[in-house]
């Protein structure tokens, strides 16, 4: 790589500090990251100074509504920022820039966080950098795992995409044609009244470990794209019948081999197995298409250990395959990834004027010009 990342360094300072604010969904995250001068490499890693997060948790059976989520973010943003600065041991004026999520995400929560970012920027006289949420995930995943040019599987509550880098853009090779995987899992959790604490997906994963019987579900892969809405409505019907007065009326709720009644754990297990098979399959297709042998999994659903295990089985069968995944600190939405990706933009001189800090609910991964890479 020949990109010069230090064209905009401040005289007499040999490091950069950035604050990142993330609030595109129900997590409010704030983090401080430090880059030293020079290219990031295995010897010159980005340093995480603090990474604080607070999640808006709703009662079982309910999702998070934009209005209430935005209120949560407004109520907590000052406290979380303070804690983040204290954890990092720095003052606001030590920072080089303020980074915020510009999209994609839910409108109201995005807006309440960007207001905090604008205020701090004017208070401390710091430049603002708008960051694409997906690019934040990808850059943080690359930095933490050291994967340099992987096929990225980005799976979260609102996104399901297979991404690969080509000529300064993160290009989308495959994606969901309807709902996202996290959305599918969350909505299934609501039908079963599974707790949203710490996350519905995590609780489904724990229940799935106890599942024994596999229920056959639809399987919809279309080239490198996939569709999940049909699977969700199919399994929702099964789940509702399970709680009816006579669940045995539905033939599909009896295991063919043992004749036992299907349990909610079995449904969790079956849903995970089917959905993840589809994800691994399209990832493999994308890898064959771009002739890559590295996979990086990012996004909240990426912290699921069964998904990581399945991906590993697939990758091990490929020549020189390697898999990279992070844990919940970096997989689940966080402020540090926004700070990291934002700081990369800042070092390339990409700064948003105040009038250009409007958030957008729709912001595709491939719209971002990746100036800090030129491989």
């Amino acid at each position, binding site marked *: 790589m020949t990109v010069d990342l230090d064209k905009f360094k401040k005289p007499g300072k040999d490091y950069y500090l950035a604050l990142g604010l993330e609030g595109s969904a129900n997590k409010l995250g704030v983090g401080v990251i430090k880059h030293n001068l020079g290219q990031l490499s295995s010897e010159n890693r980005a340093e995480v100074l603090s990474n604080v997060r607070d999640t808006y948790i709703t009662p079982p059976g309910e999702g998070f509504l934009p209005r209430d989520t935005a209120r949560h973010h407004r109520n907590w943003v000052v406290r979380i920022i303070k804690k983040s600065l204290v954890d990092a041991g720095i003052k606001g004026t030590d920072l080089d820039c303020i980074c915020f999520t510009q999209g994609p995400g839910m409108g109201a929560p995005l807006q309440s966080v960007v207001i905090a970012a604008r205020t701090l920027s004017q208070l401390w006289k710091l430049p603002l950098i708008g960051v694409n949420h997906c690019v934040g995930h990808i850059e943080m995943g690359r930095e933490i795992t050291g994967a340099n040019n992987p096929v990225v599987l980005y799976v979260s509550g609102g996104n399901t995409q297979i991404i690969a880098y080509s000529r300064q853009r993160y290009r989308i090779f495959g994606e969901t044609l309807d709902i996202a995987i996290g959305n599918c899992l969350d909505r299934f959790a609501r039908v079963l009244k599974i707790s949203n604490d710490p996350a519905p997906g995590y609780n489904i994963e724990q229940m799935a470990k106890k599942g024994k019987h596999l229920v056959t579900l639809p399987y919809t892969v279309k080239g490198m794209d996939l569709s999940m809405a049909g699977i969700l409505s199919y399994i929702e019907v099964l789940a509702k019948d399970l709680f009816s007065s006579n669940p045995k009326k539905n033939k599909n709720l009896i295991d063919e081999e043992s004749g036992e009644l299907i349990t909610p754990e079995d449904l969790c297990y079956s849903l995970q197995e089917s959905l993840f098979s589809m994800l*691994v399959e399209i990832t493999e*297709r994308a890898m064959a298409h771009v002739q890559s042998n590295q996979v990086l999994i990012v996004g909240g659903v990426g912290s699921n250990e069964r998904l990581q295990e399945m991906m590993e089985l697939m990758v091990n069968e490929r020549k020189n395959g390697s898999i990279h995944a992070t844990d919940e600190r970096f997989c689940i939405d966080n402020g540090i990834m926004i700070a990291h990706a934002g700081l990369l933009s800042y070092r390339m001189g990409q700064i948003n004027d105040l009038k250009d800090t409007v958030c957008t609910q729709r912001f595709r991964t491939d719209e971002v010009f990746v100036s800090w890479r030129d491989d």
Partner: protein
Amino acid sequence: MDVVSQGAEAVVFVTTSHPYCSQPAVENDKYIIKYRPSKKYRHPKIDAQITKNRTVGEVRFMNKLEKLGINSPSVISADYVNGIIWMEFIGDGLPNGDISSVKNYLWYLEKNDDDDGCVSDEVQSMLVAVGRLIGELHANDMIHGDLTSSNILLNGKEPYLIDFGLSSISSLAEDKAVDIYVLERAIESTHSVFADSYNKWLLKGYVQGNKKSKEVLARLEEVRLRGRKRSMLG
């Protein structure tokens, strides 16, 4: 048995042995074996179901094509449970030794010929023939599902369709338009320099092959505007 290609889903071998005859019926005859290996990451039940469904689907589709006389390899034998299809060998090698797919052929021209060679009359008549073949396919309500320049082989000058793992039957103009759109996009990304001429010729052939192409082409306009990719929320 040599590996011809290895995709994400299947491995393709070339062999000289026939499943029934102990000796090749014709001297130097070759056959293709397409094998979908089981995937360890999938639950065995899901794996068996997918392997079987896709193999059955592909064989049925190929049989139907053969009955209709649309250029495609004919099936010799199949093992649904193990995901094996034994079929006729199609194609001949290019001068550089690659398989004679439309992709390799066009790439070969790009490398070894000047610009005029890439858009010669010969190329034009070849692509028109490909378009006509796709037109005939759609005229019979058959959808390929994964049209790319590497899924069309050249046998001499005759194009042949291969790889029907994602095929389906549909009479909807929408499905046919998407099928063409996928090919257009594939041509744009793999043969970007001459993509406009190539796509024009393909459509020219398509109109010849499919008598009811008007509705499909009108829909294609819509599909192009819409794009296959949509903007997503959070």
